[in-house]
């Protein structure tokens, strides 16, 4: 079983990773500490879960190597669950990555980290309501005090055991764009195993964005 840890830079991913695996990976209070993916094993209730710590990213475009590493892992390796570590004290910015993961149809669990920091800023987050809105589990955490780890593992297990299924989020891009998405989607769906490797709608959106890396992948599939 494989679980990927994603999240914005400086949201506490590596701290969550250390809590889960008992590892002592270097944690620094600056963005970009995790430049490559790191792996560890979490033993929990007789299970052995492979935890992959992905580089911190703001989005899943192909802007930087970090983003490509994180995105390819989620799309191509298809982990059994993806945990997005979210900075609760900076929810607006962090929810952007949540939406992108939901659009990819990732089996998402949101780790709402730094709840103490959000509290001290006077934010009151309705965790249950947030979970209803994004239709994915949300677990409040204070990873620096190792609080919330058990709750996180419970929700991860529900997702990996397929007890709950996270629905793909369909963002409506307006009539003109939607028409093109539909056309591309049907072509992708009829193009052999492409649709098995990538979510068709997501691939269509990326093609419309002229995402360089995705364009290359498609060229290779089509054989030029």
């Amino acid at each position, binding site marked *: 079983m494989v679980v990927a840890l994603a999240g914005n830079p400086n949201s506490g991913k590596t701290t969550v990773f250390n809590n889960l695996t008992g590892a002592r990976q270097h944690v620094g209070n600056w963005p970009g500490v995790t430049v490559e993916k790191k792996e560890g094993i979490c033993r929990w209730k007789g299970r052995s879960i492979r935890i992959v710590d992905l580089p911190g990213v703001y989005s899943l475009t192909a*802007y930087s190597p970090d983003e490509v590493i994180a995105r390819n892992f989620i799309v191509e390796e298809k982990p059994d669950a993806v945990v997005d570590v979210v900075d609760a004290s900076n929810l*607006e910015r962090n929810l952007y990555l949540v939406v992108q993961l939901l659009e990819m149809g990732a089996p998402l669990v949101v780790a709402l980290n730094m709840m103490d920091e959000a509290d001290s800023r006077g934010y009151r987050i309705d965790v249950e309501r947030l979970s209803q809105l994004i239709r994915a589990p949300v677990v409040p955490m204070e990873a620096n005090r190792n609080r919330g780890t058990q709750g996180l593992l419970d929700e991860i297990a529900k997702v990996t055991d397929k007890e709950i299924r996270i629905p793909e989020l369909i963002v409506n891009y307006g009539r003109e764009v939607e028409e093109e998405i539909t056309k591309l989607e049907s072509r992708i769906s009829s193009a052999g195993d492409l649709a098995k490797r990538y979510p068709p709608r997501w691939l269509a959106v990326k093609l419309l964005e002229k995402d360089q890396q995705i364009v290359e992948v498609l060229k290779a599939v089509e054989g030029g």
Partner: protein
Amino acid sequence: MRDLMPLAMVGPGCTVQIACVRGGMRLQRRLADMGLTPGVVVSVLNSQMPGPVILNLRGSRLALGHGMTMRILVRTV
């Protein structure tokens, strides 16, 4: 465009609204990914040379190079 000016010209402590980004799709997309979208209100925390321009944007700080801030047009609020 009359009342617009580059973000680079805004002094520390001032609050402005982002109007547009004069750049290619990559730059626009990148800045939007960081939360810098047209209409959003930002305050300039520091713009001293040398060093980056530091913004308060949606509750977090964002550092940008001076060159990039020349391409971001803002209006006063």
